[in-house]
């Protein structure tokens, strides 16, 4: 059976899986931004925490994705079979690039600009909102871009813990030695990753202030 034929028969199901995939990546990325950006900002204010926080995020990032899913399943509350476990794992993966880029973006602001702002009487909050975050936006967005693209990839493995997504076709195809089925999941997953990357690329160019 050709791929086009497969999609003609299972178009609705494919769209459903794509939707699940987008939901997994979307929810986890938004949550990771909600945790990672404030954490990155915090590190610029308390540099002593930089080593430990980035160290932990780095270790978590290094755990192979399938192993991370396996480690999370037995945990109470956040574990179990299903989307919840997958979302937790995806958040964990997305954190490092977001924290690191937020920190790097803000600390990369020219010291003279920060000194001038403070010297003119900006409060720390005003400096952050009006100067540091706008100037760091491109770098922070680049971190979110990396996190999201990683998320699209890791989310294909989420099917292994029953979280759905395009990985369902891939695992099913591998189990039944069906190349068409594998491609039916792998191709849209790959295209999705490219599309997300292009979208963020365009967004990054728009935030550039030069």
């Amino acid at each position: 059976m050709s791929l086009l034929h497969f999609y003609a028969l299972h178009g609705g199901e494919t769209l459903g899986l794509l939707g699940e995939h987008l939901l997994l990546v979307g929810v986890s990325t938004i949550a990771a931004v909600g945790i990672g950006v404030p954490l990155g900002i915090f590190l610029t204010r308390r540099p002593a925490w930089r080593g430990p926080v980035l160290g932990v995020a780095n270790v978590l990032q290094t755990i192979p994705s399938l192993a991370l899913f396996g480690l999370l399943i037995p945990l109470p509350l956040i574990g179990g079979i299903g989307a919840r476990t997958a979302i937790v794992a995806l958040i964990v993966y997305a954190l490092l690039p977001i924290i690191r880029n937020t920190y790097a973006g803000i600390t990369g602001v020219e010291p003279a600009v920060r000194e001038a702002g403070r010297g003119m009487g900006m409060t720390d909050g005003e400096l952050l909102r009006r100067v540091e975050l706008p100037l760091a936006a491109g770098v922070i967005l680049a971190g979110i871009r990396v996190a999201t693209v990683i998320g699209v990839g890791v989310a294909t493995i989420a099917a292994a813990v029953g979280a759905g997504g395009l990985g369902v076709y891939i695992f099913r195809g591998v189990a039944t030695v069906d190349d068409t089925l594998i491609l039916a999941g792998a191709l849209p997953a790959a295209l999705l990753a490219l599309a997300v990357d292009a979208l963020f690329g365009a967004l990054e160019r728009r935030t550039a202030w030069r």
Partner: protein
Amino acid sequence: MTAAPVLDVRGLSYVLPGPAVGNRALVRDVSFAVGAGETLVLLGRSGSGKTTTLKLINRLLEPTAGTVLVDGRPAREADPTALRRGIGYVIQEVGLFPHYTVERNVGLVPALLGWDAQRIGSRVAELLRLVGLDPAIHGQRRPHELSGGQRQRVGVARALAADPPLLLLDEPFGALDPITRAELQREFGALQRRLGKAMVFVTHDVREAQRLGTRIGLMREGRLVFLGTPEEFGRSQDSESRAFREAGA
């Protein structure tokens, strides 16, 4: 001078925090007063404590001893943010906000102070003209679209925005080419006479000090070793004064 000086610095000292290793006193027992219309030039070698002294005045650093009075009120008791909004501050690197237009850069402190847009707009235009820029041409530009001299003019305009009685200038013309530098010094001299502000101007250039200072304070290793008019400086027998005069001759 009959009225209280705009800036009164008494026994100002700053010792670096941390264990006592080597020489950690960056400013030692510095006292001076600056009235309206006066420009005190702090002259000294790199590392003599000039910049640190400025930062102790607007509390970017907290003095370890001594008092700073701005308009007769102790700076220590003021809210640091409010204090700084009332003191113009210009640094060598200018530190213009690269993502803001020239207009927004100049209008920043008034915006922080909650002025309405119309008042900010007319004030910004007035200031740009004051420093020799055309609001219609330069107002909408970003800092990277300006020359070094123009950026420094915007820096001065920005510091003057909320009409502070006191201006602190840290080598404002230090990074400019000699011709632009001389041009800005000349214009700055005219500006001083027009505005009647109290100014503390830091430089290591003795000719700049003699040109712009109504008084010169010479710093060495954190101490004020000479304080007097440019004429008195010209006659001073103090060894550091002589060294600077010879370097500038």
